[in-house]
């Protein structure tokens, strides 16, 4: 599946300044791994040593937080937009 990953400002230097990167994958996890393969460095910023998404990295699929879906196992289809978003502050 062809997926578009939206890159937050803090991580764009890893992707040559791009705000969006096209990758392929069947799930959110695969798409993010593909991102790391295409642009090494993303993996260590997004995932902790145990391979889990860092606690303050949020990922949205079509505007929905993947923690409401199936996490990194959430399926993605052709044209899906996956957004990497720093955790909000607030409260």
């Amino acid at each position, binding site marked *: 599946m062809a997926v578009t990953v939206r890159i937050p*400002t*803090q991580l764009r230097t890893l992707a040559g300044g791009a705000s969006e990167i096209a990758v392929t994958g069947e799930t959110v996890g695969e798409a993010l791994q593909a991102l790391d393969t295409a642009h090494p460095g993303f993996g260590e*910023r997004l995932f902790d040593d145990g391979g889990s998404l*860092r*606690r*303050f*990295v949020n990922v949205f699929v079509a505007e929905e*937080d993947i*923690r*409401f879906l199936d996490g990194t196992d959430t399926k993605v289809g052709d044209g899906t937009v996956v957004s990497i*978003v*720093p*955790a*909000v*502050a*607030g*409260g």
Partner: protein
Amino acid sequence: MAHVRALRCRECGRTYDVAPHYSCEWCFGPLEVAYDYDAVASSVTRDRIAAGPPTIWRYADLLPVDPTDGGLPVGLTPLVRADRLAEELGLGEVWVKDDTRNPTNSFKDRVVAVAIAKALDFGLKTIACASTGNLANAVAGAAARAGLPSYVFVPADLEPAKVLNTAVYGANVVAVDGTYDDVNRLCGELATEHPWAFVNVNVRPFYAEGSKTLAFETAEQLGWQAPDHVVIPVGSGSLLTKVHKGFQDLVRVGLLDDASVRISGAQAAGCAPVATAFAEHSDTIRPVKPSTIAKSLAIGNPADGYYALDTVRSTGGALTAVDDDEVVAGIQLLARTEGIFGETAAGVTIASLRRLAAEGVVRPDERVVVYVTGHGLKTLDAVAPHVGATATIPPTLDGFRAAFPGTTEG
């Protein structure tokens, strides 16, 4: 002189210069103020605090910014011994920290006072926030007092009283179609393109420190002793985390000998991501879509949820979730026994105290402090279906006697 060294990521420990930043560029963890505690310890004393103003600024040595002149008088709110409440709950020594008595009637005046002082320090001249209501009131009031424009972003379904209590100060009130979490995301984006002080976004590391003053005051008002157990409402988790840090800071700089305070947290069942993780012994906090009358705590994606959970676990406390009926009963219980009218968050907290007492988590041999963080007049809608006139009578003695027989007997 504020004894601040840097900003430091709570997750990975990377440090940053003092600036209006709130998240780590490496791992997105939240930034926190790092102090030079040796410098703080060498300047602060109980006498110096006692000689200070009757506001949060008496603790300026332990805050991340120097006081501003002429702000609203925030803090040093009453700590009230609550014997009748304690008796109803089968507890021994209970105290209520009555933070309804701040200028805009909630604890948010504390954090906003610190945030605005720091905003001015940064040269930021417009004050903004994402709010569930109390913060909106506090930002609008404090900005008016400081002569600064303000923009407050709130969920469109907020209680009317909280909107009016904000708009009256001349603030720009922006009602956003969405939940608080949606409002928060929007403000995160706005903060990147507006040179404004979003008190709980880009100024948040400083803002949050203001909540420590609730611990400082509690200790001072108890004669420089720490309580055994405190019960605190949990929305973002920041208040709970910072009250704990406040007690720790007092030990670290030598103002308290020991502060092994048990910290318990209170959430509404309709928005209880942290209490759910606690109950399930989970290290993962799953966001929720809030549905509760306790709108000031309706944060489905709590920024400091992990730290609140860690704090409760490490101090031997507990987290509970109470339903809306318990919340209303909690408001009434506090009002009826102690004459203090708290908002829905107070209802959550009192109801949680009741639950924890019944479960034996909060014990009769403990000195307990419960934090009432906002005034009930802000959330009248919650109690309106439950209380009202006891009787409606004609303007005659007979009418009264008929409605209240036997009252002449004293």
